[in-house]
Structures are given as C-alpha cells and as structure tokens.
C-alpha cells in the first residue's frame, strides 16, 4: 500500500466508523439467502467478533466486507465511503484465512513479502518491513525457513505477519486459530491482543468459540443461520490487557453465559417451526 492513501485515511475523523453495513443482504443466484438485513457499525479500534454456528454466514459477511463478495442489497461503507466508490488500493485492510494459506515453495520471508511484492514495493524497503513484521510475531529467526518445516501455530504466525506487513488499519480474520490445539490457540489469542493494542488496529474476528470471543473482543455479535443474520450485540466491558486470570473469572463466565443465551434463544426460536418434526425425529 502506498503512503498517500494512509494519509487520506488518517484525515478521516475518528468518529466515522471503519465499517458500516446498512441492511446489507446477499442472495445467491439459486435464491439461497446467505445474509439478510445485516446492519452493523464497526468503530475504529474495535475488536469485534462475529460468533455463530456453522452456516450462519459469518465467513460470508467477512468476505463481503473484504470485497471478495458483493452484497446483493443494502450498502457497505468503508471509512465513510461507499465501498464500490473506493479504489481497490484505498482499502487498507488485510485478511487472514482459517488455514495459513502460504505458498509452500516460498520462504517465510518471501511469503510475508507477497503483498508488498504484488504492490511492487521496492525490494529493500519491502525486506525491511518484512523483518519488522516477523519480529512482531516472534519469528525473526525463521525468515529463511520453508512453511512445511514450521508447526501449525508458527505457520499461522507467518500468516499474521503477512497481514501486518502492509500496515493495515483493519484486519479481517476468519477463524484464524480454528485448526490449532487449545494451548497454542490461547497463546496466539494473547499475542493477537497485544498486536491489536500496540498497532491500534481494528479487528473483525470470526469464530465459533464462545470463550475465544469473550476473551478477545470488546463487542461480540451473535449470528444465526438460515438465513444468515445478526442476533444480538453483547458488549464485553472489560479492561485491556486481559490476563489468563480474566479467562477463569466469574465475570468471564457471566459474559460467556450471556453470549450462550443469545445463541440458544435464537436456536429455540428458529427451531420452533420445525420443533414438532425434530422432536418426533428425536423420539
């Protein structure tokens, strides 16, 4: 990304939300409703989590925000501008997939440098930024390694380093630690919070883990499936930095219960129509 649009983005007043969806919907050509009437404001500096069961459209929503999918109704505003009016290089955002999604033939350094190479950033400058980015995720020593020689957690760190290297304001993360073991995931969750605070990022995080959502975010948005839609917003009013103690505190359990209730409420409601059938099937 170039310096010009970062300057432009800085000129926007902080009160303008980073992302604003106005009754956005996405219906596929075969009439499947992937998202219905989604209205959401993501403030700058938010750590917002989209939480819901499989098929609730949380990944789809993330792809809509990223511009990989276009909403079929409603509007998407990024930093106050209609998304379709923003030139592609005026979207200082990065996307982290569920899998590390690295090029297996390229070194860690070359993988992290990819977005800069694609933007034709001069090699010397790019390598400097790559070194900074790798240092941020604690992988400065692994620059020359090939991805398959690293553990799953380290590969995911490389993927995060690659997303940080463009110095984005917004990072979209699609269940980035979903494939990792619980211990590694908790460690990476903690590191991610550190990065978020230090770089003053805005993060939209997709997960189906209630505890991960409650630990990480200041706002949890619950979602339901068929059709994919937003249910509730549960604010997590807890100070940062959050320690491991927080994740075993009564307040943590309290937040988690509210999130749980929101999800259960939705499932009983949406199931009510087919409840008789389901009960008959269960019996």
């Amino acid at each position: 990304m170039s310096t010009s649009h970062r300057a432009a983005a800085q000129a926007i007043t902080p009160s303008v939300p980073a992302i604003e969806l106005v009754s956005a919907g996405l219906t596929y050509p075969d009439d499947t409703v992937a998202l219905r009437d989604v209205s959401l404001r993501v403030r700058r500096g938010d750590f917002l989590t989209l939480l819901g069961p499989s098929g609730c459209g949380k990944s789809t929503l993330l792809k809509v925000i990223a511009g990989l999918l276009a909403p079929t109704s409603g509007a998407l505003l990024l930093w106050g501008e209609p998304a379709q009016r923003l030139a592609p290089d005026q979207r200082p955002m990065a996307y982290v997939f569920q899998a590390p999604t690295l090029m297996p033939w390229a070194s860690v350094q070359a993988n992290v440098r990819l977005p800069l190479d694609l933007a034709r950033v001069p090699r010397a400058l790019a390598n400097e930024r790559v070194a900074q980015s790798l240092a941020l995720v604690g992988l400065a020593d692994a620059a020359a390694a090939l991805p398959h020689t690293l553990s799953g957690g380290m590969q995911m760190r490389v993927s995060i380093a690659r997303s940080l290297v463009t110095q984005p304001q917004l990072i979209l993360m699609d269940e980035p630690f979903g494939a990792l073991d619980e211990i590694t995931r908790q460690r990476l969750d903690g590191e991610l919070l550190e990065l978020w605070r230090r770089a003053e990022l805005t993060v939209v995080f997709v997960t189906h883990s209630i505890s991960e959502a409650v630990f990480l975010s200041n706002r949890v948005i619950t979602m339901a499936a068929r059709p994919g839609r937003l249910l509730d917003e549960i604010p997590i009013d807890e100070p940062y930095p959050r320690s491991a103690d927080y994740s075993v505190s009564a307040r943590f359990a309290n937040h988690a219960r509210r999130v749980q209730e929101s999800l259960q409420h939705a499932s009983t409601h949406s199931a009510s129509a087919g409840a008789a059938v389901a009960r008959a099937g269960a019996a």
Partner: protein
Amino acid sequence: MNARHPSAARDAQVARVVYPAAVAGLLLLAWQALVSGWDLPPYLLPSPALVARTLFHDWSTLGPALLVTLRITVLALFLATLCGVLVSFVFVQSRALETALFPYAVLLQVTPIVSVAPLIIIWVREPTLALVLCAALVALFPVIANTTLGLRSVDPDLLDYFRLNRASRSQVLLRLRIPSALPYFFGGLRIASGLALIGAVVAEFVAGTGGTGAGLAYQILQAGYQLNIARMFAALLLISLSGIGLFVVMSLLARAALGSWHASQSAGD
C-alpha cells in the same frame, strides 16, 4: 518421511540402488546359466557375456546409432514440452477454449503413432525433422494434460488472497499458477521423456531402411535381417539404458527445481 533419522534415510537410499542391482545380478546369472547349461545357440538366445562383448566390439556402429536416437528423443521432448506448455497456457485462459480444444488433444493421444508416422515421413522431406515430429506427437499429451491440471490446481484461498491484493493476471500466473503447476509439470515431463524415446524408436522402425537409417531401431532391424541376435540385444540394452537415463535426468531436474517444498520430493517415499 525419515527426515528425523538421517541414517535410516541413507539406508533407504542405499536400498533403492542395491535391491534392484541384486535382482539384475541374479537374473543375469540365471540367464548365463540357462544359455550355458542348455547350450543354446547365439542366434536363439545369446548369453549376457556375448551381448556385452558385442556391445564392445560393435560400438563403432552402435555408438553413433545411440547418438542419433538420443538426439531425436531429446529434440522431440524439447518440442513437446514447449508446445505442450504453450497449449496449457492457452487452455487455462478460458474454460471455453479448453472445452473446445481438449478433445483434439485426446485425439492426438489415442491415434497410434505407427499409423500416422508414414504420412508425416511422406509430408516432411527432412528425415530427422520427420522423426522428431513423430516422437514429439507421442510425448505431447502428458505435458498438456499435466501442466493444465497443475495450472488449475491452485489453492483457492491463495487465489482469493492474490485477488484481495489486487494481483494482476500476469502476477497470478507468474507467482501463483506456474509455481503451483511445477510438480504436475515435472510429473508430465517424466512420462513424456519415456514416450519421446518410444516415439523416436517407433518412428525409426516405420521409416525403416528408407534413407534415414542410422538410429538404434535401424540397427535392430538390420541385425534381425542378419540373424545377429547378440547385436539386437545390445541395441535393445542401449535403448533401455537411455530410457532409464532420461528418467533419472528428469527426476534430478524435478528435484533441482522443486527443492524440498513439495511432498513428492520428500525423502523416503
């Protein structure tokens, strides 16, 4: 697989050479014993020792013949690779083009070269070129099929990532599609190298004594007319060794190009 046990990996590598060599030694011994024991005449089955002697004595004719056949094979492989890769690039540009043209690539593959070679030899006056064309036709299909498959076998998430970063078409091709396709391409090349040799020999057989006559197939034909079975075996041996040599060269090329990143190159499998 055995990366964590270097000694085990080395043992596996040694085994890969020693075991087949032991089989070859046993077979040669049995062959020699069979010929000596039954006192078979050399025009029925020459002993391995006689084949070796013939190879040495007739090297002045067999050596240049080997070079002719190898030259045709290598030129054909080169031509097939070049054309095959170009066709693959065209195929991946659009599904419509691939759908329209792929049946004709299959047509090339299923038409026996023996039946087409006479036509090519009549049409193309330059004998070497005619033989190269025949052999290239045989070797073309695996290059097209594998390279096309490879260029399409891109991790969809990586492709999304490139799109998110506004990668141009050429960037996607150079930085994503071509590296992703390399393992498939080299797989195709390995098959094609064997087919190019077969194509070269078959084409030489068809061309027969009609002018070009200098390759190994010509030597086999001539030796057959003269009932010089030992020389026939010697020429056959050279063809087999060429095939194995090509295979090894292609494997080394693949290893050099892919390094250690691809699973097909990991030790022990």
